[in-house]
């Protein structure tokens, strides 16, 4: 067994599991990268470490300093883990409609939670964080949506791990949130083999964004624009909560417990597998099931779970 001196060193090097038993096409292998195996429980541990360590190198972050970030949960939890290990104070702007476990984990790691209106989704949380960061220039604001260290964590970590473990990959499928995973992994894989296709999956912007007053209040992550996201992606599919939860249950059938956004990624991967003649589809499970147990996703009535998911941020 390897020995480590800091929990931060355990971030990355996640397993890739063959779940071809779920493939609708005998000519298509299906593999899942299990990011729930990170110590903070999600893929966002990678960007938390990457953004913090880049800021330390740049001299804009020193022990004892306050970090402020907006997050629908996972980035906040990743930052809380890294902040606890490295001696920073963390404030997280969290939309009020996230699962209870996200709030609990942030509290356990010692982060201060600042609530933002659920009706404005992550957009509203970003606005609150931007205002607080502007009012407190002495705080460090990673701003995950515009921080190059976000896609870089995937360009130097997640992407090379996938390529090393599965050089026969033909398609990569992942959820689109900040776009960091798709940008970093997508660019790395296409540099190794330009034929690799990159598919994005996103949840429908439904009731959660009814707080928008006009379409001009929409949001595209600056990193998506700066890193040529529109040219990098080959396809983008919207996947609703009901089929995502059904997919979460299918994954449980093969022993994989994961979050609801992973269900959406599986739906995207299954559609991809059904469209192509042959290939190897790798999809990314952004987190494990632990933060969703309260949603009843596995055991409650599907209609009821779906209705609850419509009002909960899970990406």
């Amino acid at each position: 067994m390897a020995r480590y001196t800091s929990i931060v060193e355990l971030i990355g090097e996640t397993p890739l599991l063959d779940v071809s038993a779920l493939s609708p096409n005998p000519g298509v292998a299906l593999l899942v990268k299990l990011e729930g195996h990170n110590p903070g429980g999600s893929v966002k541990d990678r960007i938390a470490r990457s953004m913090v360590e880049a800021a330390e190198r740049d001299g804009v972050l020193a022990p004892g300093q306050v970090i402020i970030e907006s997050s629908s949960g996972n980035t906040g939890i990743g930052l809380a883990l890294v902040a606890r290990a490295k001696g920073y104070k963390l404030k997280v702007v969290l939309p009020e409609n996230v699962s209870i476990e996200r709030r609990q984990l942030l509290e356990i790691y010692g982060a201060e939670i600042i609530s933002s209106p659920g009706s404005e989704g992550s957009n509203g949380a970003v606005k609150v964080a931007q205002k607080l960061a502007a009012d407190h220039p002495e705080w460090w604001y990673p701003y995950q949506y515009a921080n190059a260290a976000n896609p870089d964590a995937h360009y130097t970590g997640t992407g090379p791990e996938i390529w090393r473990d599965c050089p026969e990959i033909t398609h990569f499928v992942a959820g689109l949130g900040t776009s960091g995973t798709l940008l970093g992994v997508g660019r790395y894989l296409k540099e190794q083999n330009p034929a690799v296709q990159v598919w994005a999956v996103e949840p429908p912007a439904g009731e959660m964004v009814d707080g928008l007053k006009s379409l001009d209040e929409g949001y595209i992550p600056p990193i998506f624009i700066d890193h040529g996201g529109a040219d990098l992606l080959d396809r983008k599919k919207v996947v609703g909560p009901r089929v995502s939860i059904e997919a979460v249950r299918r994954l449980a059938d093969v022993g994989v417990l994961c979050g609801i956004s992973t269900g959406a990624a599986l739906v995207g991967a299954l559609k991809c597998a059904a469209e192509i003649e042959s290939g190897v589809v790798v999809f990314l499970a952004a987190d494990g099931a632990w933060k969703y147990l309260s949603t009843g996703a596995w055991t409650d009535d599907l209609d009821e779970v779906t209705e609850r998911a419509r009002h909960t941020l899970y990406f």
Partner: protein
Amino acid sequence: MAVAVRLPTILRPDAGGQAVVSAEGTTVGEVFADLVRQYPALSGKVVTTGGELHKFVNVYVNDDDVRYLDKLESKVIDTDEVSILPAVAGG
């Protein structure tokens, strides 16, 4: 050929409060042109005056984002549903 067009909450007041409307066309662009003929208040809101998709709008034919198909030239048939959704942040 008429297809169903699903509108986001924010645009429904411009279409008499309806969530789903019907519009004619064989491409997404033609469908939107017919939509604006029926509901002039939608003019400039989904497709800009320059003929491009509004930057903060995502348009799907069934579940596929048309920016990664053939944009406004993406083909539709009468069993398709075109959905318009605002672009928002995740993460």
